[in-house]
């Protein structure tokens, strides 16, 4: 049975069991989304957005699509995946099931809890009605699929005028057989509030998981949201991560994506600018080897005047790794005085590494400043030689130069412990010690 049929059966099973009926207002959204998925099926290479990205090998595997038991995980086994030495809120899921033991949620002042419990509580009905599935509608069948199966995920609501003192970590662990997971996150940040979030998907044994995640982020006036993703899963895991951001006047939202692992990673990141004088930042860094695959698709819709967007994606591809970058900037006729800058730089190290880049501008307003730059190249031989001359071994010199290349992106992280963690991960990947 192929995955689509399995999902269809699974959907109706859940439907019959009543598991999807947790709330009546969400139910029609689900049914509609499922119909849309059923009609479209999984994307194929014939679709422009999936031109370079073959999904076939991934969806042809056998997955467990419904899982309702909590697998036992020892804290010591997973400790290393957390940012430990600072106090944080944590929402942890194991095989899609909430782990109260590993988590630290709150309802005092702010809401950091489960989407499923928020759906059940009448208190949150207003928020959910107003925000749930309002921007995740790029008509991508995988988004529909996630919406149809929405069960578990993080729910974060920061009310007006709140600066959240601790960062929030959202971690999805998976183990025991090939899981097909569909987490769904909803982040609502009200006026003048500020929050830092860290998201991670991690497999802790050698199963081949497939995660299809959707996150919706709403930033109200003057809100500041920092959203960081670490993608360093095992080399068997596949991830499709779709993030949608809506911004209102004067807000600043940054989404930083760091891809170091996984067999297959596809990031869809969409920004909808629905206010004036706001700023969107999209940063990404990939460091891949072996046969790893990363695909970054970003879209920024400049729908209002006087806004800015800054996009910087860098990638280093070794061995047989493949990178795809597709960055779209769409400037609506109304969006005069837009400043949109996009940059994509890649270094190919491996003999068989490949990069496909498509930086795309679609501009309908005249009084704008838009630019994009895209380069593909190698390390500067002269710089390498210079360093070797001064007694730095080739391997270290190589790593230092690569680190310097990625540093532009790493500098964008506003969360010191995370920056440290990323630096360590990079050093490990490059096989050297970076002592700073």
């Amino acid at each position, binding site marked *: 049975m192929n995955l689509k049929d399995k999902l269809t059966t699974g959907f109706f099973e859940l439907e019959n069991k009543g598991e999807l009926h947790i709330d009546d207002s969400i139910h029609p959204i689900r049914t509609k989304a499922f119909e849309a998925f059923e009609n479209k099926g999984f994307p194929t290479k014939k679709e422009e957005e999936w031109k370079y990205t073959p999904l076939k090998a991934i969806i042809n595997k056998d997955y467990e699509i419904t899982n309702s038991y909590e697998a036992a995980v020892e804290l010591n086994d997973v400790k290393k995946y957390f940012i430990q030495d600072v106090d944080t809120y944590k929402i942890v899921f194991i095989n899609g099931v909430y782990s109260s033991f590993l988590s630290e949620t709150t309802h005092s002042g702010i809401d950091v809890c489960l989407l499923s419990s928020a759906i059940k509580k009448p208190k949150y009905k207003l928020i959910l009605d107003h925000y749930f599935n309002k921007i995740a509608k790029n008509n991508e069948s995988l988004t529909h699929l996630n919406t149809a199966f929405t069960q578990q995920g993080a729910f974060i609501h920061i009310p007006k005028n709140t600066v959240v003192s601790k960062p929030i970590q959202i971690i999805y662990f998976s183990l025991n057989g090939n899981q097909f997971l569909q987490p769904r996150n909803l982040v609502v940040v009200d006026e003048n509030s500020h929050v830092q979030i860290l998201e991670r998907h991690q497999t802790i044994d050698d199963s081949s998981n497939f995660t299809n995640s959707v996150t919706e982020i709403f930033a109200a006036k003057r809100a500041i949201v920092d959203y960081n993703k670490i993608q360093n899963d095992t080399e068997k895991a596949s991830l499709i991560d779709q993030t949608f951001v809506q911004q209102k006047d004067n807000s600043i939202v940054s989404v930083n994506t760091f891809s170091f692992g996984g067999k297959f990673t596809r990031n869809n990141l969409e920004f909808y600018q629905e206010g004036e004088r706001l700023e969107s930042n999209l940063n990404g860094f990939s460091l891949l080897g072996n046969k790893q695959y990363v695909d970054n698709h970003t879209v920024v819709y400049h729908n209002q005047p006087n806004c800015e967007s800054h996009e910087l994606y860098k990638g280093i591809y070794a061995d047989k790794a493949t990178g795809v970058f597709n960055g779209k900037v769409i400037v609506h006729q109304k969006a005069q005085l837009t400043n949109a800058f996009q940059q994509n730089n890649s270094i190919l190290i491996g003999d068989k590494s*490949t990069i*496909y880049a498509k930086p795309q501008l679609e*501009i309908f307003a*005249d009084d*704008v*400043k838009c630019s994009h730059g895209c*380069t593909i190249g190698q390390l500067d031989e002269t710089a390498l030689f210079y360093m070797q001359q001064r007694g730095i071994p080739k391997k270290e010199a190589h790593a230092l130069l690569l680190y310097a290349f990625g540093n532009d992106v790493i500098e964008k992280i506003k969360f010191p412990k995370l920056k440290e963690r990323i630096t360590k991960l990079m050093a490990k990947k490059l096989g050297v010690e970076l002592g700073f």
Partner: protein
Amino acid sequence: MSKYTEEDLKKELENQEYEYGFYSDLNAETFPKGLNEEVIIAISKKKNEPQWMTEWRLDAYRIWKNMEEPDWANVNYPKPDFQAISYYSAPKPKKQLDSLDEVDDELLKMYEKLGISINEQKRLAGVAMDIVVDSVSVATTFKKTLAEKGILFMPISEAIQKHPDLVKKYLGTIVPKTDNFYAALNSAVFTDGSFCYIPKGVKCPMELSTYFRINEGGTGQFERTLLIADKGSYVSYLEGCTAPQRDENQLHAAVVELIALDDAEIKYSTVQNWYPGDKNGKGGVFNFVTKRGLCETNAKISWTQVETGSAVTWKYPSCILKGDNSVGEFYSIAVTNNYQQADTGTKMIHLGKNTKSTIISKGVSAGKSQNSYRGLVQVHNKAENARNFSQCDSLLMGDKCGAHTFPYIECKNNTAQIEHEATTSKIGEDQIFYCNQRGIDTDKAIALIVNGFSKEVLNKLPMEFAVEARKLLEISLEGSVG
């Protein structure tokens, strides 16, 4: 095109009649509308083509029948009805005018702005010449020089007769019949076009241009150009004309194939100024062109284009850099105004080692027009040390137009170096103000700025063309900024 050249054409045709005995029929009829195998066989017969050519056309037609019209381009237009077109028509004798007074004022004004001489104006407008222009002798000397060098330059239909081996060897090798919808259609029905062969080691002493190919009147609807530069040769080829062309044909689907063998160099320049439709976007030419060149070892192909006309343009002159050390270049200015739509760009396919490509694309959109750059830079895994530099800049005038870029970059080799940059902006008010202050009116100021913006491309055009192209840009953008 003009009375004079047409007479000349007739004379030549008359002479040829004895050789082939089919041209007199040609003048007699226009085929009924529609396309089927019979029509194609008839076209082939008209042209007195050998059997292999007829088969070739039929094959293309069968391929075309099973193809669908592409709709991926960023353009919007009513799909032409391919059964409502007559695929063969004899050259129509133009109405002869007695003096320039009878010519459309608007057309004359444009000629004047372009700085076209009175005689030339008359020739273009089809006015009977009262002063003898020495174009026959120019053409004859021209032909003589070419013949001395062994250069073959003739209509493609003539080449099929005279040099079937060359045509057979190269036709459809660069743009195969299966390439795309319009290329297939062109392969099936083409009737006009040029054929050019530069022998080994010959540097063509002059710019070859369709203007001198006076034995063929006007541009055709389905033009097919085949240009072969043999080892170590050089040629510069000009296509089109800066003068406005009031063409009645709505659909143009041309195919151009360039072959640069080892160490050869081809420079191909185009100025396209077909009818863009009126201010409300009514009428205008649909221009769907497939242009592609193949570079063998150390060869170089350089495309330069100035696109100001046509209602819809769909054109991607490309280079296949097959040989080691080959070079591909693309310089383009596309200007769109009113309701024009242009989706143009290039493809650079790097297959050989140490291949280089440069792409400079400038787009200017005004009025309610849409201007897109769509390009592909592809580096295959064996293309060591490939180098590409692309730059596409767009200039927007007015808040109702659009500028888009769709660059595709695919790199499979880790020694390749690829750079791409694109910017979009409008003409700064301060720049215009600066010019105004110095007594330059706004229209002139815009022309000045646009010229500066497109200088990199204009400089690549042959001298006399560049001057005219510059004026053409001015005219195309006249009154676009209030």
